[in-house]
């Protein structure tokens, strides 16, 4: 009985989040937000996460290099180290990492900010002053998170190649040229597309969840706290599920069109 109630409320919550997402899209079609506000938000989101994403990217590259070195030394295929490590990062680890980073920083920040605006009646005040909070407040933040996640993905990948080169050099004595040589061959267009699509999907999930949670906050300061925690948890779960789904769908699609996963 109890678990049914919980399941029911979870489905309720997902449903209203989807409706909220549709509303944002409608607002985007009808009344786009001001460009200044959007650029300001993109700048803010990017700057907020620049250092952490860069650092994390660097260490992910380093970790990948270590892992692949251990495997590939067996086969004497160390020349492919750079290509494989980078491919794995682009396709899978990079987008996932960026999304988690953003969920922790920007997601939490955005839902806290919007939640505070909700409980101090600022959002009501905006409606009373003749503006649409979806258009003026939500939309720029929503779009900014999506745009910024691409910038951050780019940065994270560059840093991860840096980390890979460093560790590849230290651990496996793979030179910089050696490391970079096979990257163009192994990192195909399809794997870059794969990474970009994932990054986009994760960013949409994050942006929807954190604006939705912030916008629907109730109950004072502790409501804001709750919204922040819920944002973090829901986005992480959502992202992991979406990751599995996209990998699965991509796999099926590739099988259908190409015949076998390369």
């Amino acid at each position, binding site marked *: 009985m109890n678990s049914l109630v919980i399941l029911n409320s979870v489905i309720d919550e997902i449903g209203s989040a989807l409706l909220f997402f549709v509303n944002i899209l409608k607002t985007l079609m009808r009344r786009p937000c001001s460009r200044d506000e959007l650029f300001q938000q993109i700048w803010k989101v990017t700057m907020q996460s620049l250092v952490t994403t860069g650092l994390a990217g660097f260490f992910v590259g380093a970790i990948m290099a270590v892992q692949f070195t251990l495997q590939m030394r067996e086969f004497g295929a160390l020349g492919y180290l750079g290509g494989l490590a980078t491919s794995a990062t682009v396709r899978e680890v990079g987008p996932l990492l960026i999304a988690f980073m953003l969920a922790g920083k920007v997601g939490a920040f955005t839902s806290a900010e919007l939640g505070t605006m909700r409980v101090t009646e600022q959002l009501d005040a905006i409606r*009373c002053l003749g*503006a649409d909070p979806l258009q003026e407040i939500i939309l720029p933040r929503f779009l900014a998170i999506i745009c910024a996640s691409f910038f951050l993905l780019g940065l994270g990948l560059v840093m991860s190649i840096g980390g890979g080169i460093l560790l590849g050099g230290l651990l496996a004595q793979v030179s910089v040229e050696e490391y970079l040589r096979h990257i163009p061959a192994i990192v195909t267009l399809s794997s870059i597309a794969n990474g970009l699509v994932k990054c986009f999907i994760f960013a949409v999930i994050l942006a929807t969840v954190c604006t939705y949670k912030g916008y629907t906050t109730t109950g004072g300061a502790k409501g804001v706290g709750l919204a922040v925690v819920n944002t973090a948890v829901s986005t992480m779960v959502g992202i992991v599920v979406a990751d599995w789904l996209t990998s699965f769908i991509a796999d099926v699609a590739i099988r259908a069109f190409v015949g076998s996963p390369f």
Partner: protein
Amino acid sequence: MIQFEKVVKRFGPRTILKELTLHVPAGEILFILGTSGTGKSVLLKTLVGLLRPDEGEIWIDGQEVSKFSEIEYLGIRKKCGMVFQQPALFDSLTVFENVAFGLRRHYRLPEAEIVSRVHSSLAAVHLPDASEKMPGEISYGMQKRVSLARTLALRPQVLLFDEPTTGLDPITTASVNLLIEELSRQFSTTSIVVSHDMTCALSIADRIIMLDQGRIVEEGSPDHMKRSQVPLVKEFLAEVVT
């Protein structure tokens, strides 16, 4: 000017407004008093469409608005300016931009007109010099004044106040109260003040309504209220500062 006809509002199983009927003629200062949680704020929010009633009709200036869409409501919100309980200023904007916010959204006005309206609104709340400050730099009492100026800049026909003096010290209370009267008369607005301060109500209201559990239990002029035998009214009267 404003009519509520048998308005019912429910939140889940709880009924907040119970077939509330209320008429407010143009130019009146009406105080709605009651204990916490009797639906006073809900009443104001249903009026400007932040909440929608479950049953009944709301008439504003000859239009039945309760089924209006969000877009249609924009016109109503130009007419009905709401002053929130908390100042609800936008932290990232200067006082000037806070006051100009509604003007920029509701009307297409030349910048010079906006500037002059903002300055006249700030002057009306006795804050002529605060326009370049940030909300965080001024006292709470001043923030409340700015939020009043923000609503006033739209030149509304109706002013709605949600507990304007709750939590303020007696002196700030008195000055905010005085400001409400001054502005209502000066701009000849219809004003509805939701409050639990009988002292304020007696000193500036044309009419007072006592709300209990979503129903009107007593209404009349301040003089009528002073003589009322309704127990809740008598309890509120015991708090009056003389």
